[in-house]
């Protein structure tokens, strides 16, 4: 019995290969979209983490020789014996591999090979031939060395003991950098007394950028979430169609005596087999997609770190598993609903079409209530969401609510349009479109989500980029930044630069507690640089005047949010009260910050000597100035930073982010377009009986084909109209709720109408391409097939 039933069930697919293809392709695409985004995300994160942790870059101050040359190992011993807790690092290249030698007993935690593991042996690492930690690719480039393979290691980097590194690089007795550990002992002598040729480099710069890239990852994660939603809709649609198409067969089988339970089990098993096959194909496809996208991601991160980031993918088991889990889970969810319906379906349903229609009406009402409930919840969350969890809940309720509401909204709109219709053809067109809506609604939901995701993510990324560019202009307004080490250099700089630069702006700060928040207070010199470039989130009149006069204070957004302070509030700094006259955006900064006038700062913090200066000058004069500064004032070029460099690197990151986002946008739209194509193809075969009377009444087949195409595009346009506000709401949730919860600052939201128009055009194009083939097929339906509709009628 099982064999005969299985034969009957499977023979359906052989006779209808297109339907089988729809099902498998739908499943595979959904899986591919999901696993592709996950792969890009995971790989980018892994590379980024590895790069960041290899040397704890940005976390610790470092000591280097002023002249950039390596220092003698004795310098390390001298510093340690003087009570300076530093750890030596030597670096170099061997056979294309970056060798990093660390001293594990003194290095801060979290540096070097990620974790002790099998193969890690202290005695072997520290003495004898030594051990190198690196990924398999790195190990293959140094076949003669004893490697411990750590897949998460930074690409092209091998970490080993400093003694081993010195030997491999033939640099015995040399050290490049000393990492300055936190928690230095009391009574330490000044660096200048023990090692005058060393300079201390502060860790500041790196961590800000790291914070910003976290936002980039959040962006990708949000995209993964959305692609998941699109994927689930497609899976659901594919499964739903597979069941719908076989409903008559199922009924016949039951009438012929196949028990319901056996049928449900067989169909479930069949679907799970398909899910496994399609899921496997989908993961492989996702891998290809990710591999194509990854060079961009890798380039993005390489631009950021200037370090090697792997441009190739590692096939991580977790992708296979999560990809297959999505395929199987999505199929199971979709199939359980369909199977439940199948079990509930009366054996004689065909005899009671009215009952089915009533059930459909009931379902539409239920769907409407759920959609309304979800959208109401989203509305409440919009007003109240304040954490990461509620932020993501907001995203979910918005998305699902809107998707569920879409068919109902479209149905109402179409009903309204049909009332406006004048001609008979138009009336038939609207009525027929309404009738088709249920069959297309899942594909349209997928299109809605894809478009909304694109609008949302594009808005977020573009807003981010604009904000960041403005922020860079504001913060890196000076053409040159110079760091001095002592009062002698300070005097030399001022003497040398005063006649040559337009302005010398000291960057001096002190750490204090303001409203119980750790805060860095800056004392700024009155200059147009600040007045022209800084953008306030809110401010009172003459905010800069009052600040430079020393009577008022400006605070950053982080401090304002955490302390609940705003304009009109008063804070205490070193016992002096300052009214707040402005709040400014401070993207990427983890702690509070405040600005007071230079005079007030000097009065309150007399012990602070300015170490960094921003110099305003003609950008073209910068290189010459730096060279002269070294030659004539004795301030090494290593202490000067040309801001154009910093800015260029930072902006490059976001250009790359853009490339990746665009690629993903196109991909999601393509998948949604495919869903439309498949739905239309499926509907096409059922549509012959519906179209035959219209044809008989005088519309040509060509006209019918055109109308089919118009219908698909019109539905796409309507969906796009719904998608735009949804996408903007999504962007708002990402920028104003999720980002605040994750990073503590709110990103201003900008609108990009041209981008949206382009997206709308793409969506229309996708819908048109999807509808083209089915429309052509309809236009070429042989008249005999149309006639058969009448001859075959009961």
């Amino acid at each position, binding site marked *: 019995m099982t064999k005969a039933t299985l034969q009957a069930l499977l023979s359906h697919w052989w006779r209808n290969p297109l339907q089988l293809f729809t099902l498998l392709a739908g499943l595979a695409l959904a899986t591919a979209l999901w696993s592709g985004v996950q792969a890009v995300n995971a790989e980018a994160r892994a590379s980024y983490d590895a790069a960041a942790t290899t040397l704890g870059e940005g976390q610790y101050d470092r000591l280097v020789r002023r002249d950039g040359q390596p220092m003698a190992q004795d310098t390390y011993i001298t510093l340690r014996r003087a009570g300076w807790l530093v750890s030596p690092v030597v670096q170099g290249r061997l056979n294309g591999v970056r060798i990093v030698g660390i001293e594990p007993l003194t290095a801060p935690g979290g540096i070097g090979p990620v974790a002790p593991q099998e193969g890690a042996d202290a005695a072997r690492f520290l003495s004898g031939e030594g051990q190198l930690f690196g990924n398999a690719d790195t190990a293959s480039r140094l076949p003669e060395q004893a490697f411990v393979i750590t897949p998460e290691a930074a690409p092209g980097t091998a970490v080993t003991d400093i003694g081993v590194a010195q030997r491999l690089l033939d640099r015995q007795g040399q050290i490049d950098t000393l990492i300055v550990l936190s928690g230095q002992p009391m009574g330490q002598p000044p660096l200048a007394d023990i090692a005058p040729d060393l300079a201390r480099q502060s860790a500041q710069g790196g961590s800000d950028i790291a914070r910003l890239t976290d936002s980039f990852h959040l962006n990708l994660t949000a995209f993964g979430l959305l692609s998941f939603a699109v994927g689930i809709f497609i899976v659901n649609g594919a499964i739903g169609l597979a069941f719908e198409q076989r409903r008559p067969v199922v009924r016949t089988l039951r009438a012929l005596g196949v028990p319901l339970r056996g049928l449900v089990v067989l169909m479930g098993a069949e679907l799970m087999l398909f899910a496994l096959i399609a899921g496997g194909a989908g993961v492989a496809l996702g891998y290809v997609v990710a591999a194509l996208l990854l060079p961009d991601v890798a380039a993005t991160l390489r631009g950021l770190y200037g370090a090697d980031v792997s441009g190739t993918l590692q096939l991580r088991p977790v992708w296979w598993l999560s990809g297959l889990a999505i395929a199987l889970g999505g199929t199971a969810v979709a199939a359980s609903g369909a199977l439940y319906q199948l079990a509930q379906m009366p054996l004689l349903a065909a005899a009671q079409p*009215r009952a089915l229609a009533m059930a459909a009406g009931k379902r539409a009402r239920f769907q409407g209530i759920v959609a309304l409930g979800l959208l109401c919840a989203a509305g409440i969350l919009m007003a109240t969401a304040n954490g990461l969890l509620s932020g993501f809940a907001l995203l979910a309720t918005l998305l699902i609510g809107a998707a569920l509401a879409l068919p109902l909204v479209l149905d109402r709109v179409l009903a309204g349009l049909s009332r406006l219709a004048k001609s008979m053809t138009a009336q038939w067109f609207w009525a027929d479109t309404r009738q088709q809506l249920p069959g297309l609604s899942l594909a349209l939901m997928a299109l809605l989500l894809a478009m909304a995701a694109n609008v949302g993510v594009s808005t977020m990324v573009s807003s981010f980029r604009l904000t960041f560019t403005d922020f860079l202009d504001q913060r890196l307004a000076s053409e040159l930044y110079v760091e001095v080490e002592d009062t002698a250099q300070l005097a030399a700089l001022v003497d040398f630069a005063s006649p040559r630069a337009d302005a010398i702006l000291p960057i001096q700060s002190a750490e204090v507690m303001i409203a119980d928040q750790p805060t860095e207070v800056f004392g700024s010199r009155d200059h147009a640089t600040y007045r022209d470039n800084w953008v306030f989130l809110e401010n009172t009149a003459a905010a800069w005047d009052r600040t430079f006069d020393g009577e008022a204070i400006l605070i950053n957004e982080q401090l304002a949010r955490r302390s609940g302070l705003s304009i009109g509030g008063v804070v205490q700094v070193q016992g002096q009260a300052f009214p707040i006259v402005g709040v400014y955006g401070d993207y990427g900064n983890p702690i509070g910050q405040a600005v007071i006038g230079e005079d007030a700062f000097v009065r309150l913090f007399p012990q602070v000597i300015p170490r960094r200066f921003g110099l305003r000058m003609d950008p073209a004069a910068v290189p010459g100035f730096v060279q002269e500064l070294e030659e004539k004032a004795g301030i090494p070029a290593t202490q000067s930073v040309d801001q154009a460099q910093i800015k260029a690197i930072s902006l490059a990151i976001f250009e790359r982010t853009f490339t990746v986002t665009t690629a993903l946008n196109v991909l999601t739209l393509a998948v949604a377009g495919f869903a439309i194509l498949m739905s239309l193809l499926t509907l096409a075969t059922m549509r012959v009986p519906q179209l035959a009377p219209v044809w008989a009444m005088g519309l040509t087949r060509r006209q019918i084909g055109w109308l089919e195409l118009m219908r698909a595009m019109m539905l796409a346009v309507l969906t796009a109209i719904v998608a735009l506000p949804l996408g903007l709401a999504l962007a708002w949730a990402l920028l104003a709720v999720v980002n605040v919860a994750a990073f503590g600052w709110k990103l201003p939201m900008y609108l990009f109408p041209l981008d949206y128009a382009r997206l709308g055009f793409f969506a229309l194009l996708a819908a048109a391409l999807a509808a083209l083939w089915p429309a052509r097929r309809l236009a070429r339906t042989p008249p005999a097939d149309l006639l058969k509709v009448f001859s075959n009628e009961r």
Partner: protein
Amino acid sequence: MLLRVTDIHKTYQTADGPFAVLRGIDLTLEAGETLALTGESGSGKSTLLHLIGGLDTPDAGQIVLQDQDIAALDDAARAALRRGIVGVVFQQFNLIPSLRIADNIAFQARLAGQHDAAWVKTLTDRMGLSAQLSKYPEQLSGGQQQRVAIARTLAPKPRLVLADEPTGNLDEATAAIVMDLMLELVSEAGAGLLMVTHSEALASRMSRRLHLKAGRVA
């Protein structure tokens, strides 16, 4: 006694309130006997057929088939009944479109585990389907399709054949040929036949007839 139906009641819920389709039907059928069920549309004759076929369950009353009360059976047992003992010929043929004619004919016998190749060959030949075996249902005419459906129903050698307007979708000439074949084969198999029809001509060819009116035997 092959079949005994006692005081069957069935009510459907409709948008206009409950509607009593059957209000106390009694009938009996012996093996080899043929019975026509006639009546106007809505008189409940199709419903009665579905109940006897185990496709639906009565609200009250007894349907005893070969000494078994089928109203008391669960879904799996009723499915088993449909596979082997009762065969149903539908008005709309209900062939499996993805299977070839040969597989469609043998399908139910295989389901029931009562496949008899010689008997299937006899059926195929007598129905004049030998040339169509490797075709698909959509390639056959309506009359041919109904002959496939009848052959399929008779293949497992059921004790009781239920037919619901089996020739309703066919033209008169084709209907007459199909009907002749069905009556012949049912009688050869020694099965009982219960046929719903509103054709006087057909009804007159049966050994007995029962006329339903508003859910009661008239």
